[in-house]
């Protein structure tokens, strides 16, 4: 039976820089003010999520948004300052061992046991979960094969490439056949082929009715893989829904990023009057982010309007409806800023 996840009003405040377990860089709260405020780092600020059994759910946001901390809380690795988290019917902080049976975790940075070979890592992982000798050995062979690690199976993992370590981490997380798979930034640092292999593996795992929670700051990945998404920034969920729903919520859908020489405020006011334009936000003083329901066909009108206002259009970038635009729309910042 598939298992869902739920968090309610999770808050996490670090009083010292978070240790490696949380991963990533977290947003530093207002550094000015009293001595106390200087060390206080608000990683989660009231995160409530409901992830349905059997879905692929994505947490999308920039570095330090609180994605890894959310995963940390759900996987028993980060103790929340307040709020609750459940895996299936189990309260993560009251029934840790029961929760750990249900989950498989792929960390942001591979944390393989460097004292063991690839095969031993999987075998011992199976042993921690009480797998029998036969089941364990069969599954190890299958996973090594599936993750293309068979020829390196009896080597120590210290010399493995980043992609191989990542594959072995995923194989390890699947070894005990968990109901929920957590993947923290699974494609960071992977080459394109490995990324496609990874996506296939995730879809395959999901097809057997299992739940997947992944974090990413790659918009394409979230778009391609996830049934539903939550966009996270500064420890808060700023938008939630399917990729399509979220993209529909961007005014107009198209984003035109414009740069002008000699721009002025009246120009921005007049841009808003063009047909199809939904919203104009000024950016960096000389530019504008223009949301509209059409793209290229607006350029000529914008160029004319600029010329008649004594400004000159110097750069245009048109993007079609995407999560990147959505993030920009909600936060005023690009995902990779």
């Amino acid at each position, binding site marked *: 039976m598939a298992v869902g996840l739920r968090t309610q009003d999770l808050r996490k405040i670090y009083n010292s820089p978070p240790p*490696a377990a949380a991963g990533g860089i977290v947003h530093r709260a207002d550094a000015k003010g009293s001595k106390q405020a200087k060390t206080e780092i608000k990683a989660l600020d009231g995160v409530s999520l409901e992830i349905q059994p059997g879905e692929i759910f994505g947490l999308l946001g920039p570095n330090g948004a609180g994605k890894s901390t959310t995963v940390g809380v759900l996987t028993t690795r980060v103790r929340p300052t307040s709020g609750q988290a459940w895996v299936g019917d189990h309260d993560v902080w009251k029934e840790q061992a029961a929760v750990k049976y249900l989950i498989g975790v792929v960390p942001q940075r591979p944390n393989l046991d460097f004292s063991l070979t690839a095969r031993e890592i999987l075998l011992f992982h199976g042993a921690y979960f009480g797998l029998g000798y036969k089941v364990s050995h069969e599954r190890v062979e299958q996973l090594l094969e599936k993750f293309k690690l068979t020829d390196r199976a009896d080597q120590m993992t210290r010399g493995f490439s980043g992609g191989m370590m990542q594959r072995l981490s995923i194989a390890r997380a699947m070894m005990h056949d968990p109901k929920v798979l957590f993947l923290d930034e699974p494609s960071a640092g992977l080459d394109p082929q490995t990324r496609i292999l990874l996506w296939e593996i995730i879809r395959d795992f999901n097809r057997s009715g299992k739940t997947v929670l992944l974090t990413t700051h790659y918009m394409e990945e979230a778009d391609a893989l996830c049934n539903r998404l939550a966009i996270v920034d500064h420890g808060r969920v700023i938008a939630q829904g399917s990729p399509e729903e979220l993209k529909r919520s961007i005014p107009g859908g198209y984003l035109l990023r414009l740069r002008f020489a000699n721009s002025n405020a009246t120009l921005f006011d007049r841009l808003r009057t063009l047909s199809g334009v939904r919203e104009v936000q000024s950016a960096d003083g000389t530019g504008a982010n223009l949301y509209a329901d059409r793209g290229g066909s607006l350029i000529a009108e914008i160029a004319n309007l600029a010329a008649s206002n004594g400004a000159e259009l110097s750069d245009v970038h048109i993007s079609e409806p995407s999560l990147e635009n959505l993030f920009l729309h909600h936060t005023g910042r690009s995902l990779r800023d």
Partner: protein
Amino acid sequence: MNWTAFFAMLARDAHVARRNAIQLFFQTFLQPLLFVFVFGKVMVGSGYMPPAYKSLLLPGIMAISMVFTGIWAVAMPLIAEFQWTREIEDRLLAPIDIHWVAIEKVVAGMIQALVAGLVVVPLAWLVLRPGVDLHVQHPVGFIAIILLVSAFSACGGLALGCTMNQQHVGLMFSLVITPMIFFGCAYYPWSALKTFPILQKLVLINPLVYASEGLRGTLVPQFPHLPILAVLVVLLFFDCLLLAVGLRQFDKKSVS
């Protein structure tokens, strides 16, 4: 309590120890054997030390070997596994309360300390013989002492390993381990310090003193030593204290 996971972790540690057996052997036995050779053989043979020193030295060497094997066996892997690579994470995610992960490390350390203690005695005896006079009059007392000593060393390793960072390992040796060895009454009995009354009181905070004196009291009771009962009580106290501190530090390191 999930004993399957517990024993699987113990099996993992045994597997790693077996893989590093040669390195572990030299790490554990080379220094004590050289010490035994220089002080027990060269110094006694050349007449600078009385022949009885051989018997006095042996329990001290056993104490040092056990204590430092236990500390080393627990602290060094923990320091490495809690570093940037977070290698310990797969065991923290095993379906078992995380305190048992720490206790497993302690048990693995105790086993290594016991093996070190029980192997160094015949090795040292081979180097020193003839003239070593061992009398185990109370086997139960001796077993109790070696169990408590191994537990103290492994719990100490847990506390140190979860408190120190990799860059502080050198400092740990010069600040904790070296003074512990020299003021641990391993190379001389505690009663030999009576001419330094302040120092004699001060060294009582050093748990190695009780390990050396306890082993001396059970292996070579003909030499002056602290009362065995007192040694047992104090060692038990150190075991509990270091275990409590170690578990607290482990918790701090493993859950953020």
